[in-house]
């Protein structure tokens, strides 16, 4: 059959057929090339801008350079929060092929604890830009540094980096005032500019560090860099250098702070000292404190657990959050309230028995002095701290005038200007009790409030601030930590930062009250007569706050009680009485007798007014004293 076909083959026709097919193919080729050109035209001309942007997005990355953090100084230029250069072992995960092998190799060179590896793994999970190194071991000792440096060439992706870490040279006494910085958590990043904190090692968490975070942090440098596909920086396109954080100068006096902390001895408690002329906080002590340096690079689970479970609550900021009954330290304020609203006068005599009854045969509210004080007047009620006088006064007044008057001193409010987490305490009122207990206010409630007990609760900062108002004869400033920020004075919200003035109907009552409080020390029956003999005048008031309620006729017997049930010992004072430079509130938790805070306060006055510190505090003097 093939043979038959071959006979009649028309070669010319076959040639033309194949040539036509070649031509057809050429047309196809041409058409398909047109498709390609069209596609290129579409991508390169029509969509060019889109792809140009995409290409730039690929290669251009913003890298932040953390600014050096501002320092925190005390009033004399003592550095309370410092930046310290350290050497840290860091790892660039992108350059590590085998983590297990790296782990083994590193462990033969230096000690890396299991928790450091865990922290590292945790950091690995968190957000970070490619090729950003992660700290594996911070603060290498010189020996470790030397060891690692020798073997560094073998360890691709591992490097020793010089970094600035935060350092608190004076540790626990300042922890509650200065606060600390800590590892940046994803929660922190919700409130700050993520980009700015890229590459930052820590963020202010508490205290001044927390409140002034923005100021101390400064402005991160922004580097526009060109990166390759793996995120590695190839070149720098544009550089915006970081602006260092501003220094914060506090009113705090480092020596006073440390001295007050030490004077509390092994008691828990709090001391707050305020300069009445400015509202500046000279000392803000909450004891026990803790070592803030533990938090800087992330506290270990064990250390944190120890702090949290300690019965002395070292993490609890008593100065800001401790709710204490102000006890008898409230009496000067109560007396002024009575005078203001006409429920008391300086001349009226009152017979003080050993107890007070609202109704005959009613409950007996006991005086601290069983035998009573006999005939007394208002001034003597302050000097001898006569409870029954204030029971009756409070009962006469009722809660509303008390509430209104004490509010003017900042009780029941959070007036601290530049620390977060302050508690408002509790200044009770009719409305409050109705809302809280669905019960009316009873006269007995007022009676208890009359001696700063019962429902009333205040924080050390509040009582100290109210004391500074007494010292200033009604003229006072809300308490504040910062004096200057950078080179300029610390700015606060207009209404808050300014002076406040409590104007009494009879402004002479301020001086009379100051005089009464002076006699608390100078009078032979004054409850703080042990402070007699200073070259300057002290105005003060003692207080002992009940930790638990005694039954009506039960007697307080310190010896038979567990120390944790001892009364809190309180003292407020300011000096010199005529032109006060310092006002203090001190509380010894379960201190029993108010002699402890009274002695402490006097020591602080001596030290602050006459620069009469024990020599061991010379290291905290600062340049202003040199």
């Amino acid at each position, binding site marked *: 059959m093939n043979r038959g076909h*071959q006979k009649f083959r028309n070669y010319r026709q076959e040639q033309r057929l*194949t040539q036509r097919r*070649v031509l057809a193919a050429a047309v196809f080729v041409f058409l398909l090339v047109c498709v390609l050109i069209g596609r290129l035209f579409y991508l390169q001309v029509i969509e060019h801008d889109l792809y140009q942007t995409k*290409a730039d997005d690929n290669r251009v990355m913003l890298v932040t350079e953390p600014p050096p953090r501002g320092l925190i100084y005390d009033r004399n230029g003592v550095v309370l929060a410092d930046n310290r250069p350290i050497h840290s072992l860091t790892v660039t995960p992108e350059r590590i092929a085998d983590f297990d092998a790296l782990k083994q190799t590193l462990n033969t060179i230096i000690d890396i604890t299991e928790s450091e590896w865990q922290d590292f793994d945790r950091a690995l999970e968190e957000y970070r830009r490619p090729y950003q190194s992660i700290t594996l071991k911070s603060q290498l000792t010189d020996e470790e540094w030397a060891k690692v440096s020798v073997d560094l060439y073998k360890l691709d992706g591992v490097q020793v980096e010089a970094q600035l870490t935060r350092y608190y040279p004076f540790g626990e006494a300042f922890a509650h005032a200065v606060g600390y910085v800590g590892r940046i958590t994803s929660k922190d990043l919700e409130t700050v500019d993520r980009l700015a904190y890229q590459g930052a090692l820590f963020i202010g968490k508490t205290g001044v560090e927390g409140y002034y975070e923005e100021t101390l942090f400064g402005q991160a440098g922004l580097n526009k860099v060109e990166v390759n596909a793996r995120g590695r920086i190839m070149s720098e396109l544009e550089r915006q250098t970081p602006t260092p954080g501003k220094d914060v100068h506090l009113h705090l006096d480092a020596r006073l702070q440390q001295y007050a902390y030490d004077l509390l001895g092994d008691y828990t408690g709090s001391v707050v000292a305020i300069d009445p002329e400015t509202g500046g906080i000279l000392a803000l002590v909450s004891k026990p404190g803790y070592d803030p340096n533990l938090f800087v690079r992330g506290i270990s689970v064990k250390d944190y657990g120890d702090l949290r479970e300690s019965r002395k609550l070292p993490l609890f900021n008593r100065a800001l959050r401790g709710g204490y009954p102000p006890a008898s330290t409230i009496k000067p304020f109560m007396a002024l309230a009575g005078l203001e609203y006409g429920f008391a006068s300086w001349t009226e005599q009152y017979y003080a028995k050993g107890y007070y009854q609202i109704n005959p045969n009613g409950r007996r509210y006991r005086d601290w002095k069983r035998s009573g004080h006999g005939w007394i007047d208002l001034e003597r009620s302050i000097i001898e701290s006569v409870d029954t006088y204030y029971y009756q006064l409070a009962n006469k007044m009722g809660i509303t005038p008390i509430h209104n008057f004490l509010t003017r001193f900042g009780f029941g409010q959070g007036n601290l200007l530049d620390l977060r987490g302050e508690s408002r305490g509790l200044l009770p009122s009719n409305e409050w009790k109705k809302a809280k207990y669905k019960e009316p206010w009873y006269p007995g409630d007022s009676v208890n409030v009359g001696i700063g007990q019962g429902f009333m609760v205040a924080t050390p900062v509040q009582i100290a601030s109210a004391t500074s108002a007494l010292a200033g004869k009604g003229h006072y400033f809300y308490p504040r930590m910062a004096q200057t920020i950078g080179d300029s004075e610390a700015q606060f919200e207009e209404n808050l930062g300014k002076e406040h003035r409590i104007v009494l109907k009879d402004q002479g009552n301020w001086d009379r009250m100051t005089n009464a409080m002076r006699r608390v020390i100078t009078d032979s029956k004054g409850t703080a007569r042990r402070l007699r003999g200073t070259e300057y005048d002290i105005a003060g008031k003692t207080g002992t706050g009940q930790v638990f309620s005694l039954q009506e006729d039960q007697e307080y017997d310190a010896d038979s009680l567990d120390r944790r049930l001892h009364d809190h010992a309180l003292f407020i004072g300011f000096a010199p009485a005529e032109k006060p430079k310092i006002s203090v509130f001190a509380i010894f938790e379960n201190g029993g007798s108010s002699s402890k805070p009274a002695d402490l306060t006097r020591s602080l006055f001596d030290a602050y007014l006459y620069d009469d510190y024990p020599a061991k505090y010379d290291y905290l003097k600062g340049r202003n004293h040199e």
Partner: protein
Amino acid sequence: MSESLYQRAISFTNARLWKLVHVDVLLIASLFLLIGGGLFILYSASGQNTAMVERQALRLAIGLVVCLVLAQLPPKYMRRASPVLFAFLALLLIGVLLFGVGAKGAQRWLPLPGGLRFQPSEIMKIVMPMMIAWYFAHKPLPPTFKQILVVLTLIAVPVVMIAKQPDLGTSLLVAVSGIFVLFLAGLGWRYIIGAAISAPLAAYTLWQFMHEYQRQRVRTFWDPESDPLGAGWNIIQSKTAIGSGGIQGKGWLEGTQAQLDFLPESHTDFIIAVLAEEFGMLGCGLLILAYLLVIGRGLFIAAKASDNYARLLAGSLTLTFFVYMFVNIGMVSGILPVVGVPLPLVSYGGTSIITIMATFGILMSIQTHKRAI
């Protein structure tokens, strides 16, 4: 003056000397244009790696030698050797399936003594059209239905074996090179239209035979943005490179996509994206023009060939070369799936350079062994 220059150029290309050494001047000149441009791009695409460029140049030089040697061989010898070569290669392909070595789950290589490796499927790209052209050499055209069936069977056997390695790209190109012969031999248009209609069905069947990685490539093709960091990365980055190049390009060695490694496979399959980024549409146009010169000359040689075997073979080889180029540029620019076809003579590496140069040897042989008509 200019006229005489033109005449001199004509006489240069027609010189008897070229005919004597069996070199087609126009073809080789277009090839040199393409190769030169390719090396130039490769220098940039490889990250200015001169060693890589030298290796590529060496490979091209070897290819050129193969090309020139093959050009000396008269087409009639090739024709006679065709069935033997085909049978031999088919055996080798079976060998590959049994003893082959390779990487990434595909075995494409036959180990040779002395540590050398050999990829029979690559040679099949030439031998397949030789075989089909041989089949038609002594038969009257156009082919009968029975002949079509025989030819399709001949095509299918090696194609399936190559596809099983698995090497989808090469098997498709081998199939295409055989089908082109069929087309050039005058395959009836009704068959062609019928095939075009049943193509979706074929595609479905093909889908069933695809390995997961191949299917993934197809899926990614339809929606590359769906997996921007994984499978879609290549296409997204190559489109970005091409598009950002614009009309004039960013300049040699200035392509950020290529130089900063955003473009994967930038020196192999995706090298055209480097050209497009750095030299823009103008650069791409020039490269395509160089390809068209080569392809145009190839088709011219095919049209002018003296017998059916030579015509069919030359035409098919040229068209296959075009398909290489079209598929590569199509896939890099995102209109065809990523099937792993290099840009012929420009992409770095591969046995393909030698085989492609061999096809041009065959074309030159066909052109220069003609009896004067």
